[in-house]
């Protein structure tokens, strides 16, 4: 029935019309016609075609028009799959046809999310999530209990994770307004993302029950690395922003699709859902089984444990993806603050963190914090911890960005006065040895740290005040990996004395604290962590100037003046050696 009409309409619409304005006008007209009477339903097809247009303005107009067309139908339930697909029933045929177009529209919208244009991505996302809301509302009224249209949402999540052009506005829109704000959207995103990643990895789903996978993702093999990298990047970009994980039940109060009534026990939704998948609520049910068996069964969305569980699942899935160094570092940076506190079982990260700690380099430094949380709060026992910590003091330590973070933790690790002096001395000696080749910002960190350690371990004072007749040669073995065997206690901190003559005046002044009496109980290391070349430079340059800058005692003879007197012939060659600059010719 629709075919002739469509042809007629197509004739009316000039497909080659370049004028976007005309197209937009036309879209409005078509939309109005659809709204006026059902006879113009075929306009929908044209509108969907407009969605494929080259011009973003046209697409923009078309998708909004379509949303306005579909939204009343959705809330009226006109798009619901008829119970008996009787071909002869005209109404059923129309509904089926409408439904097909609706699905087409949704697919197109998901595809738009992948377009490079942020101006389209953001409204598309809005429309999709609005549709999710409408559908959920409809389903909820239908079933009498809260229902989430996860089938559509799963597609949205999939589109987001596989998005090739994840633009900043889109990311921001999604994370700030939806993902970070609404508890249900976050819950289902985490759940879906875990599924999608698992599917992409080709690993078998963790849960024994029937895998709630969409038909698309039922591939068993591992996806190509490029796709995995894409998923990782997008998933991490979204997960990274998650700061609003609930920590108490009462925080679960913002829902996109309406608040599920906590007193009303959930009834199994029996009505047929339409869309891509028929069963979407089973997993939710499963998750609640082990926890809420004893007490009154709450809606899964209202149980904190479920939220944590999906969070944990999502991260576990995410961590299985092949990490890039950047994301690895970023993950380690947030692991202690944003991940561990929300995990039902933080120990799942044990292997991840231990491996990271053993990886060496900057990764080790970053893993330290998470490991520290596990050790102190979750009873992780780590053998040879101090030896490994000692080995982290390598040649590049003082120059990496994360040194401030690292040293603030070292300060905590070495804070126990019960540590053996030999061990502490080894750390002190190692630090001062590294200080000889460090930037001023790092020296400024280690000096108060060494002071604190010396103050805490008076036995180590012999490092800066030894007996005059003791051995002259340095007994410290810098190549020894075991701090207890490095013989540091018998050494002396000549390095610090040399640093007292450092070129930076503030460093030199700071290093002189070892010459003074140790009257100060301890230095607060926090005051010394946040320096860089740039801040020190700025500090110098903005310093209040007292008097005029001292001019050189002798007036310069010239910029580069040769020592030897040149004869007239040599002047032209300009090849005389400038004293102090023997390796240069000017």
């Amino acid at each position, binding site marked *: 029935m629709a075919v002739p009409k469509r042809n007629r309409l197509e004739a009316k619409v000039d497909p080659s019309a370049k004028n976007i304005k005309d197209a937009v006008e036309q879209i409005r007209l078509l939309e109005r016609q659809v709204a006026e009477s059902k006879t113009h339903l075929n306009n929908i097809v044209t509108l969907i075609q407009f969605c494929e247009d080259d011009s973003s303005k046209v697409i923009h107009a078309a998708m909004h028009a379509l949303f306005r067309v579909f939204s009343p139908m959705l809330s009226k339930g006109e798009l619901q799959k008829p119970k008996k697909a009787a071909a002869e029933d005209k109404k059923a045929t129309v509904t089926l046809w409408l439904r097909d177009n609706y699905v087409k529209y949704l697919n197109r919208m998901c595809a738009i999310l992948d377009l490079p244009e942020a101006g389209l991505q953001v409204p598309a996302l809005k429309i999709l999530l609005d549709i999710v809301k409408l559908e959920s509302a409809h389903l909820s009224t239908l079933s009498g209990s809260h229902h989430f249209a996860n089938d559509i949402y799963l597609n949205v999540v999939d589109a987001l994770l596989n998005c090739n052009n994840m633009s900043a506005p889109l990311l921001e829109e999604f994370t700030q307004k939806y993902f970070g704000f609404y508890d249900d959207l976050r819950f289902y995103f985490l759940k879906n993302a875990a599924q999608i990643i698992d599917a992409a990895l080709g690993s078998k789903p963790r849960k024994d029950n029937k895998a709630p996978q969409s038909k698309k993702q039922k591939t068993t093999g591992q996806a190509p690395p490029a796709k995995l990298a894409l998923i990782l990047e997008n998933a991490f970009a979204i997960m990274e922003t998650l700061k609003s994980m609930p920590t108490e039940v009462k925080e679960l109060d913002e829902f996109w699709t309406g608040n599920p009534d906590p007193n009303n026990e959930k009834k199994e939704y029996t009505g047929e859902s339409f869309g891509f998948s028929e069963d979407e609520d089973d997993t939710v049910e499963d998750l609640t089984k082990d926890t809420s068996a004893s007490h009154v069964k709450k809606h899964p969305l209202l149980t904190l444990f479920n939220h944590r569980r999906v969070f944990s699942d999502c991260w576990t899935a995410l961590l299985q993806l092949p990490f890039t160094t950047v994301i690895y570092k970023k993950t380690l940076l947030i692991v202690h603050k944003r991940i561990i506190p929300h995990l039902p079982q933080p120990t799942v990260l044990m292997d991840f963190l231990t491996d990271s700690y053993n990886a060496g380099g900057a990764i080790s430094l970053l893993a330290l914090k998470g490991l520290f949380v596990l050790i102190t709060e979750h009873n992780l026992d780590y053998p040879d911890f101090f030896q490994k910590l000692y080995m982290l003091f390598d040649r590049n330590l003082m120059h990496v960005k994360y040194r401030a973070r690292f040293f603030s933790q070292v300060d905590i690790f070495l804070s126990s006065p019960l540590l053996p002096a030999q061990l502490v001395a080894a750390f002190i000696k190692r630090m001062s040895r590294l200080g000889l080749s460090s930037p001023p910002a790092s020296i400024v960190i280690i000096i108060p740290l060494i002071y604190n350690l010396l103050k805490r371990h008076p036995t180590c004072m012999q490092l800066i005040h030894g007996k005059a007749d003791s051995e002259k040669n340095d007994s410290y073995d810098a190549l020894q990996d075991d701090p207890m065997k490095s013989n540091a206690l018998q050494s002396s901190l*000549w390095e610090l004395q040399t640093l007292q003559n450092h070129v930076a005046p503030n460093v030199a002044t700071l290093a002189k604290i070892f010459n003074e009496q140790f009257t100060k109980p301890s230095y607060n290391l926090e005051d010394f962590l946040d320096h860089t070349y740039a*801040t020190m430079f700025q500090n110098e340059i903005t310093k209040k100037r007292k008097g005029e800058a001292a001019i050189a005692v002798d007036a310069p003879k010239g910029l580069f003046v040769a020592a030897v007197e040149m004869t007239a012939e040599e002047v032209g060659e300009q090849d005389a050696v400038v004293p102090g600059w023997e390796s240069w010719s000017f």
Partner: protein
Amino acid sequence: MTPEEKMLERFTREKQSRAKGGAMFNLEEESDLTHYGQSLAGLDDFDEDGLGYSDDEDDNRGAIGGDIVSHSHFGGFDEATGPEETHEDGRPKTKAEIMKEVIAKSKFHKHERQKEKEEMDDITKELDDELEDIRGLLGFTDQAAEERRPKRAPLPSQKSAANRALDRIADEEKERQKQDRESGILDKDFDDSYDKHIRELAFDRRAKPQDRLKTEEEIAQEEVEKLEKAEKARKRRMEGLSDEVDPKEQGGFKKRRKAAPAADDLDDDFAPEDDQFGLGTGMDVGEEEFKGVKPGRMPSKKRRTVKVDVDSDSEEAEGDDEEDGEEESSEGEEDEDEDEEDDDEEDDSEDDFSDLDMTMERPTKKLSTAKDEDDEDDMNDMSAAKSKKSTQSGKKAKVTADAAAAAAELPFTFPCPTSLGHFMTIIDGIDMKDVPTVVHRIRALYHPKLSPQNKEKMQVFYPVLLDYIFQISVSEIKFPTAALNTLVRHIYAMTSQLGDHATSCILGFLEAFESELQMDLASGARSGFPKGDKLCFLRVLGQIYSTSDFQHQVITPAQFLMSQYLGQCQVGSVKDIASGLMLCNLFLDYQSLSKRVVPEAINFLSSSLVYLAPKGTFSEDVNELPGSFPIQEVNIAALQMTTKGLKSVEVERLSIDMFKLKDTALEKNTYRVAAMSAAADILLKYAILYASTTAFSEMFQGPLGLLEKLSAVADFSPSLKSQLLKTQDRIQKLQGFSTDSRTPLQLQAHKPVPIASYVPKFEEGYSLDKHYDPDVERSQAHKLQVQYKKEKKGAIRELRKDAQFVAREKLRVQREKDSEYNAKIKGIMSGLEADQGEKNAEARMKKAKKMKGKRN
């Protein structure tokens, strides 16, 4: 003499001659005492020879000669007095003749005297006339003379001379006045003016004695002292002390206290210091996670805008005016006594424009043809006298012949440049080597001493000149060493002239460099290593400022910047390495006196040795490398030496011009070998510089390990190999010395800290009545309360007394009243009683009468 006496005399004579110690050593036989060559023995004691009254002679002016008197006056005229009183023919003169002679003689004498006097008068007159001339020098306020002559103050050298002349003249004048008055030849007019002068002289403030001109030795000595003082100040600054104030005078107490706390020191004076070490605030906490770079910060050009301090300027202007006035007056005098003035004039100009005094100074070159001489003088006639100094010192040199010839064609006046573009248009068409001359002329034309506005102009010109230096250090094909050598002297002079403004300018430049570096580091597109211009600028800084200071307004930030270049920039090409090497060399230069430790430089040198070494010299694992310097992940292919043909590549010197070449053009072994050799060379210099530091062996452990491996490489050319070996050998030796001489640290050899005393404070002669409240406020409040109480009591007492008094008075009045009433009543009663008594008596009498009557 009797024979006896004669014998006695002989005896004594003999005795004496014997007592003199024998004739053997007596060279002179005669031992007679003599006076004026005459033997004293022959003199009679009472002869009055030579004892004439010498002062008599002064008085006998106008008198007749002594011989005449003795012969002709009283008791004279003795016939037989002497042979001279006779005529030629032998007969004695007559008295008349003698008298005539006497008269003639005295007349002659008188005539003589008159003649003498006339001569004297003539001389005096002459002197008077000359006084007019001298008076100008004396600075009399003679109006007429003033008008006639341009004003001029006496020069210091003349002043003292004139002072002496003045005194002498004044004396002479007095004398002459007396004589004139006596002789009556007083000229009225002359006298008036003369008196006026005298009075003026008397009231005029006497010229104060001035320092005499200094001799050359003294000048040299002073120069030495000045240098020593400057050096001392520099040393103090190097130790981080204030360069002016002696530590004993300032803050001495605080220092001492810190060293040895007193027994009653409770340590309660401790206050947390916010920024004890001058570290600044560091980064914001929020920045912590993605620290390192703040992208998008544009270089602030604020500092580079010219700031004109109005107040100081006007002051300056005043001072200038005064000086100008002085200069003018001295110049006006110039034409008159050229010879005398010359020296002073020289000094003046020397003082004022000494900062321009670097024109064409070229120690390597000396040319002195007459023509050049002239050019030079024309060019800067203000410092014309410099030639004298230059010949003295022997170091001052002249323009090269061609430069002078070109300079002759140059215009002599230029507008003061306001921007680099303006400057470029000014010097458009002028040869590079003449630009310093142009700069010199601009500076001479707009010297701040000449006009107050010139200072502002110079303040604008200063950054322009710096910009220009930037530009030519990169734009020219060949690095313009000669021009820069001269320009840097101008920069030095201008820096000392402009002071704080120059500092602001340079800090502005540094800040721009820094933000540029930040952006480079953030973007990662470029390595961030400075190119020729910035290196050149940093070199200029090192030349004009005192780099050995512990803390310096300009040098300290500059060094932070240089450290950052060395520490954070990513090495990507040989050019970067060359740039880094140059920075290391700059640091070496900066620290040549203070010998402070620059870890970044040693790190850079070590790591560049690693990068440049041919493949396989060092293991791939960075942890296997000796030392603790950091290793970046670099594009090793661009840096590593290729073994092919390496043997034939000899060591060359790095050129500053190589910064203009392309990166790929530098990927040759020639440059790599040159860089490695330079690195080794600079490393050795650092080792020598730091030889005395205690951690020398730790510091150079890494580089030494690298050198050991490098000198074992077979592929190097002999020259490179020998240099590496030499460096290794020297550093090894220095390390040996260092480890031998060092001892374990003894940093805590402090005096034991006395335990804080908590003994209570006892009061001598404690009294219960006294209050010993240490809290002043409370004790005062208490005092006030006590006073109030006392006053209140007093007031109550007074009131009570008053009340009592009033009551007493009332009672007294009442009593008086009562007694008055009583007396009155008494009187009445007694009257009444008397009446009654009378009545009674009457009645009784009646009764008695009755009774009598009855009886009767």
